[in-house]
């Protein structure tokens, strides 16, 4: 159990270690380096959303002067292996087929061949000379079509995992799962009010500002180096090795600085292609995606259909819930619908429920993780429905949630009992906040919603190396996305008792750091932070032993206090030794001092967020703007509060974009029609107010400081918080996102055209 502790550095706000390099342009990102002899790669992509690949003839491309290598899917060995890609075992056959299609193109933009040439223009020209013969098939671009009885089948061998009926029949439904408790029919029978709605959300992209980019080289000896922008260098290493056919020991992956990932830079796209081209050409190959390729061929999250029904007593107690969730997986199985189902009811103590979840393949890019994968979609439906319950019963929306809130010892909808969770504290904090009672202006509305995410654990490693001057270096294997270098330095400083500015915090490559799982799942400050703490403890114990050597006493007799070794009482002429004083004598007391730790952490313990959104609608245009937004979150312990607040604000900004404007727009033949930031509208700084943040700290007992994880929860509530504010402002319940001006205006005009009943 975590005990309260007075911290010296935890909770302070030092300048981030990578900050100056990033704001001055010195930091090196995926596309920045140029290696001697480097070739440029270009990927040929399918112009069809669904087509059988009859043949690929690359002879003309190979004959283009300046071309050094051309590959197709047949050049990559087919593997049936699985690896732990991020947090779930992934079928590398699907990943390999997604990297370069073998027999079928499954979405517009699916890679089918690649060229390496001396210039990018030559590579493009050669790619255009590749002759691909397609048999065009009807595309499946939505859930309703995918599950129709006469739907074209994407994968003839696919069967529904977890289904009781029709499991032997080809299908586009990859899996089915369910959660249930109690007697749902009896629950609804005792309800005084029942709300039932169907919600839809479009496919949306993570929208990281840095496109995918990499450089790979592979020598005659088969030893390879891959430089790339990634959330998981070890995932890239192991996936590349398996897909290209090398030992992991022969692939070193060096992560660049990363311009956003949000889950979308966990999987591999370009890296195996660049490596295979480099191996064939025996020269380094660099590939950089254009924004249209990022949209068409990398990690969106699912479009969805969610039906939810809630029943409540007159006092606001929710007594029954049922829901069905259908998520698009894209071209290969694996949407986050299971997580969505598990998150949907996580905030509420509901005695009777039934939730079913379906994973549906469609001819769109394979979805990738996106910040709390699956949870925002489920929360949009659930929190909109809870808002309706509050309205029907005329109970304050926060009060309704408090009356149903899960607390420590309650059973989560997915089974286990919750440990300490801060949901009630957070709701009470939100209710007491001035924002909740602030007056609204004309055409304005206020919405409230909560959100939930699990927060991951998994594998982490760290080393803490003492320098002779008493400073220290921390090395971990997690690319720094959200300020984790600073957080790791703070934790090492706290344990060693040296100023945080004297700790250099580094991101190692796959040869220079111990195995570490991805920067994702809100796990870095929790799990890798725990490894850093243990490594620093290990270094501190070595420092104590060295002090004992200097004093010629037993180690157990040496105390440690505020960064100093304390001699045993009565030791002649001995006074406390600082870290710097002990480190200066390392060579004479046994050699270098290197603290190490590796661990496998359980999931961090769940976290909740609650958001208040004020929105103003122009009734003449349907355009809305967010006028005030406050995000509350139980983070366990904020190690560096500025980066905790930054995560909360970033999640809110992304969620507002998802709610108001973002969507993949497809033509009837399955071509994305808005694959650029001009037509795919993401919020920019001028679109948003300053997002207020309120940190709540209910310690997570699994971490020495109580850290819970931060990054994912804040994207969960905004979809519903915005939609609930829109309901408040317009009187209209919107059940489909985005709440773009045309959709809102159409609904306002339709409502105005309906005569009001007397």
């Amino acid at each position, binding site marked *: 159990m975590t005990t309260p502790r007075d911290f010296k550095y935890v909770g302070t706000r030092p300048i981030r270690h990578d900050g100056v390099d990033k704001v001055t342009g010195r930091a090196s990102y995926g596309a920045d380096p140029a290696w001697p002899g480097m070739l440029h790669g270009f990927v040929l992509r399918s112009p069809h959303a669904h087509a059988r690949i009859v043949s690929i003839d690359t002879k003309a491309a190979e004959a283009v002067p300046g071309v050094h290598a051309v590959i197709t899917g047949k050049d990559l060995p087919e593997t049936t292996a699985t690896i732990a890609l*991020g947090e779930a075992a992934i079928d590398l056959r699907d990943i390999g087929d997604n990297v370069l299609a073998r027999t079928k193109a499954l979405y517009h933009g699916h890679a089918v061949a690649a060229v390496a040439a001396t210039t990018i223009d030559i590579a493009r020209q050669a790619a255009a000379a590749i002759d691909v013969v397609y048999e065009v098939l009807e595309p499946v671009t939505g859930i309703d079509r995918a599950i129709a009885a006469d739907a074209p089948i994407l994968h003839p061998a696919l069967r529904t995992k977890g289904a009781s009926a029709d499991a032997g029949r080809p299908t586009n439904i990859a899996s089915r799962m369910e959660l249930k408790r109690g007697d749902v029919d009896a629950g609804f029978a005792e309800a005084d009010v029942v709300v039932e709605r169907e919600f839809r959300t479009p496919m949306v992209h993570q929208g990281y500002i840095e496109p995918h980019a990499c450089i790979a080289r592979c020598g005659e000896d088969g030893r390879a180096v891959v430089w790339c922008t990634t959330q998981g260098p070890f995932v890239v290493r192991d996936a590349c090795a398996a897909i290209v056919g090398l030992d992991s020991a022969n692939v070193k992956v060096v992560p660049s600085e990363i311009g956003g*990932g949000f889950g979308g830079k966990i999987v591999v796209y370009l890296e195996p292609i660049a490596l295979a081209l480099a191996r064939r050409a025996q020269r380094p190959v660099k590939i950089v995606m254009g924004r249209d390729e990022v949209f068409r061929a990398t990690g969106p999250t699912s479009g969805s259909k969610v039906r939810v029904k809630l029943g409540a007593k007159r006092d606001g107690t929710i007594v029954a819930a049922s829901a069905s969730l259908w998520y698009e997986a894209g071209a290969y199985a694996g949407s986050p619908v299971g997580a969505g189902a*598990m998150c949907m009811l996580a905030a509420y103590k509901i005695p009777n429920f039934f939730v079913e979840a379906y994973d549906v393949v469609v001819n769109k890019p394979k979805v*990738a*993780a996106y*910040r*709390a*994968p699956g949870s925002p979609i489920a929360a949009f439906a659930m929190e909109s429905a809870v808002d309706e319950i509050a309205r029907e019963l005329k109970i304050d929306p926060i009060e309704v949630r408090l009356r149903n809130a899960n607390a420590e010892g309650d059973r989560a909808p*997915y*089974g286990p009992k919750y440990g300490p969770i801060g949901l009630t504290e957070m709701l009470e904090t939100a209710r007491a906040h001035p924002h909740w009672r602030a007056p609204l202006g004309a055409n304005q509305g206020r919405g409230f919603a909560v959100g939930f995410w699990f927060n991951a654990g998994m594998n982490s490693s760290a080393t803490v190396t003492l320098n002779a001057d008493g400073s220290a270096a921390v090395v971990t294997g997690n690319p720094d996305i959200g300020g984790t270098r600073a957080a790791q330095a703070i934790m090492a400083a706290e344990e060693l008792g040296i100023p945080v500015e004297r700790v250099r915090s580094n991101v190692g490559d796959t040869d220079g750091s111990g195995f570490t799982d991805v920067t994702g799942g809100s796990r870095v400050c929790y799990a890798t932070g725990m490894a850093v703490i243990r490594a620093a403890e290990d270094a501190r114990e070595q420092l104590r032993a060295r002090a004992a050597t200097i004093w010629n006493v037993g180690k157990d007799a040496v105390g440690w206090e505020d960064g100093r070794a304390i001699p045993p009482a009565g030791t002649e002429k001995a006074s406390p030794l600082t870290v710097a004083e002990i480190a200066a004598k390392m060579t004479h007391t046994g050699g270098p001092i290197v603290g190490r730790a590796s661990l496998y952490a359980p999931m961090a313990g769940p976290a909740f967020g609650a958001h208040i959104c004020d929105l103003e609608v122009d009734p003449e245009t349907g355009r809305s703007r967010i006028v005030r937004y406050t995000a509350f979150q139980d983070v366990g312990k904020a190690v560096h509060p500025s980066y905790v607040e930054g995560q909360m604000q970033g999640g809110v900004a992304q969620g507002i974009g998802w709610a108001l404007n973002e969507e993949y727009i497809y033509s009837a033949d399955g071509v994305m029609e808005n694959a650029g930031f001009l037509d795919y509208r993401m919020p920019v700084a001028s679109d948003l107010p300053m997002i207020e943040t309120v940190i709540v700290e209910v310690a997570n007992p699994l971490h020495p400081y109580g850290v819970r994880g931060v990054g994912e929860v804040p994207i969960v509530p905004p979809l519903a918080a915005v939609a609930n504010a829109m309901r408040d402002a317009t009187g209209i319940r919107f059940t489909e996102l985005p709440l773009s001006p045309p959709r809102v205006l159409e609904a306002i005009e339709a409502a105005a055209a309906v005569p009001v009943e007397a």
Partner: protein
Amino acid sequence: MIAVARVHLPSGLTRHTGGVETIDVDAARVPDLFAALRDRFPQIADRLEEMAVAIDGEIYADPGYQPLRADSEVHLVPRIAGG
């Protein structure tokens, strides 16, 4: 010491267990638990590998050789991927 774990199966698996939702298993560690479940319910054998395991509220995405305490409460939970 052999622990007696109370194992709660997710509802998606109970159609393969004749409706059994909860079962007490003598098992010192998670592999022993899985082996006992495979013996009792062969139909769910290949699904077990996809499950995270919650032991007294702590969820392990990969449960490995985690020990079980006496009277541990175990839930099998679908694995989750984060972003």
